[in-house]
């Protein structure tokens, strides 16, 4: 076998980073907005709308219940239309983003729902506009939950991106599967696993640290 392990690792790391970073940003943005919409349309204090929240809830659930690997295949035509190809890291970003948006939508909705209703009611009783309550009370009060959701989403994205090997997606997971598993290079596979574990651990630690810093509830 003739390949430079260091180069391969560096390329794979970069690919993972790109895939995860891109879909993470999209999922925080769009997933967060969808989560917010799901929440405000179920709450009397904001914009209760049973039809909207039911319908969008069902769509999100459908996306969430399709296994990632199947979504990857199902979305191929759309992927091709958006990024012009069906394979490689660029192509994987599309299904990855769709999954992550649905995932983070639910997590952020839960984070919003956990905010003490009494606090929102007090703000409403002050005569504040709902938009102001959202930005000035709801978002800050939900931020620990939102941060924890980002941590979980990031870690899941790394897991999903490792599945990207099936479409030649690249990244650390792909490297582990192609060289480690299919070509019996156990050393490479183990190395990849160790790297993944270290990355996931670091993200969890970072996320927990930021969440702790953001939490004023316990006087931190």
């Amino acid at each position, binding site marked *: 076998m003739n390949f430079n392990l260091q180069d391969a690792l560096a390329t794979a790391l970069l690919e993972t980073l790109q895939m995860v970073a891109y879909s993470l940003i999209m999922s925080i943005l769009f997933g967060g907005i969808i989560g917010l919409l799901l929440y405000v349309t179920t709450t009397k204090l904001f914009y209760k709308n049973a039809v909207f929240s039911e319908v969008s809830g069902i769509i999100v659930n459908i996306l969430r219940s399709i296994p990632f690997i199947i979504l990857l295949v199902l979305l191929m035509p759309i992927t091709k239309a958006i990024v012009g190809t069906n394979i490689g890291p660029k192509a994987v970003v599309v299904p990855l983003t769709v999954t992550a948006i649905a995932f983070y939508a639910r997590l952020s909705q839960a984070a919003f729902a956990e905010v003490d209703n009494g606090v929102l009611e007090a703000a409403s009783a002050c*005569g504040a506009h709902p938009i*102001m309550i959202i930005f000035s009370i709801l978002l800050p009060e939900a931020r620990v939950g939102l941060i924890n959701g980002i941590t979980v989403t990031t870690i899941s994205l790394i897991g999903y991106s490792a599945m990207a090997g099936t479409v030649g997606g690249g990244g650390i997971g792909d490297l582990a599967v192609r060289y480690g598993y299919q070509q019996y290079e156990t050393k490479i596979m183990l190395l990849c696993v160790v790297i993944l574990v270290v990355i996931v651990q670091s993200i969890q630690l970072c996320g927990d640290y930021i969440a702790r810093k953001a939490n004023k509830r316990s006087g931190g």
Partner: protein
Amino acid sequence: MIQFENISVSFPQKNGELHAVNNVTLHIGKGQIYGLVGASGAGKSTLLRTINLLEQPTSGKVFVNGEMINHLRGERLRRYRQNIGIIFQHFNLAANKTVRKNIEFPLSAANVPKGQRKKRVDELLDLVGLRDKSEEYPAKLSGGQKQRVGIARALANNANILLCDEATSALDPETTTSILKLLENINQKYGITIIMITHEIDVVKMICHEVAVMKDGSVVEHGKVIDVISKPQNEFTKKLIYNSENYELPSDIIARFGEKSIIKITYLGSDASEPILSNAIKSNHVDISILHGKIDYINHIPVGTLIVSVQGEQRDAENAIDYIRSKTLRVEVGANEF
């Protein structure tokens, strides 16, 4: 000031409707501290929350300062709410805002310019005595301090009505007293009308001028606190008041004097200038033994309760009791009756 006209509020339920408030008509005068008491689930909070439309009446009208407010929506409702403060049992402060930011929030909501906001927050901090806590987060404050922040927030936009929903129920007795003093002070200083929900009769006695008693969604009795407390007309009100007072005498005492000879006298402090008991003894050939006594202050008026046994011929005893009754607020006969 505040006028409820046939207010009903019902909530849809699985099997029919829950009538939380049932056809309440009530007037609350300007500058009053008005108590709202009753058992849990009586509909007190629901009625109170129709004043700032956190709860929309199913039927009936609410007038505030002569204006019917039921139909207010959108921007007009928000403007209206800026004049009505509310404080809660669990304070409902934003945990991720400092004391200053919590108090500033309603000012921002009312578009008060930034320069004026700081000055106003400082005034409010002084009013509630929290100047040195302005940069703390609520988690670092005691319950009493949190409620002070709640009060400052509620009054930020110069509210003329303050709604208090069990505002002292999560506080210890000492802190309760200090918060009640603050509320009374605010009422006197600014003439703000205060409506206080409480399940503690002692809170009503301490600061309320008038009181309404609610049961199962209806107001069963209302009036001046001194009248309602000293001469409750409704059975439920009696129970509510007597449950908070404990006049259970030891059974051997009751046996020794005789149940029927024991009476409970309720009198105003001003009655005490006449030697009523000694007159009753002299003119009726009876003996009177004092078994229990105490003085309450209802809205700063001393109200005494005395439990005595009247010993003598039946006719004499009855005459003595009639005499005492004519000179005091209320007399109840028979130890088992109270």
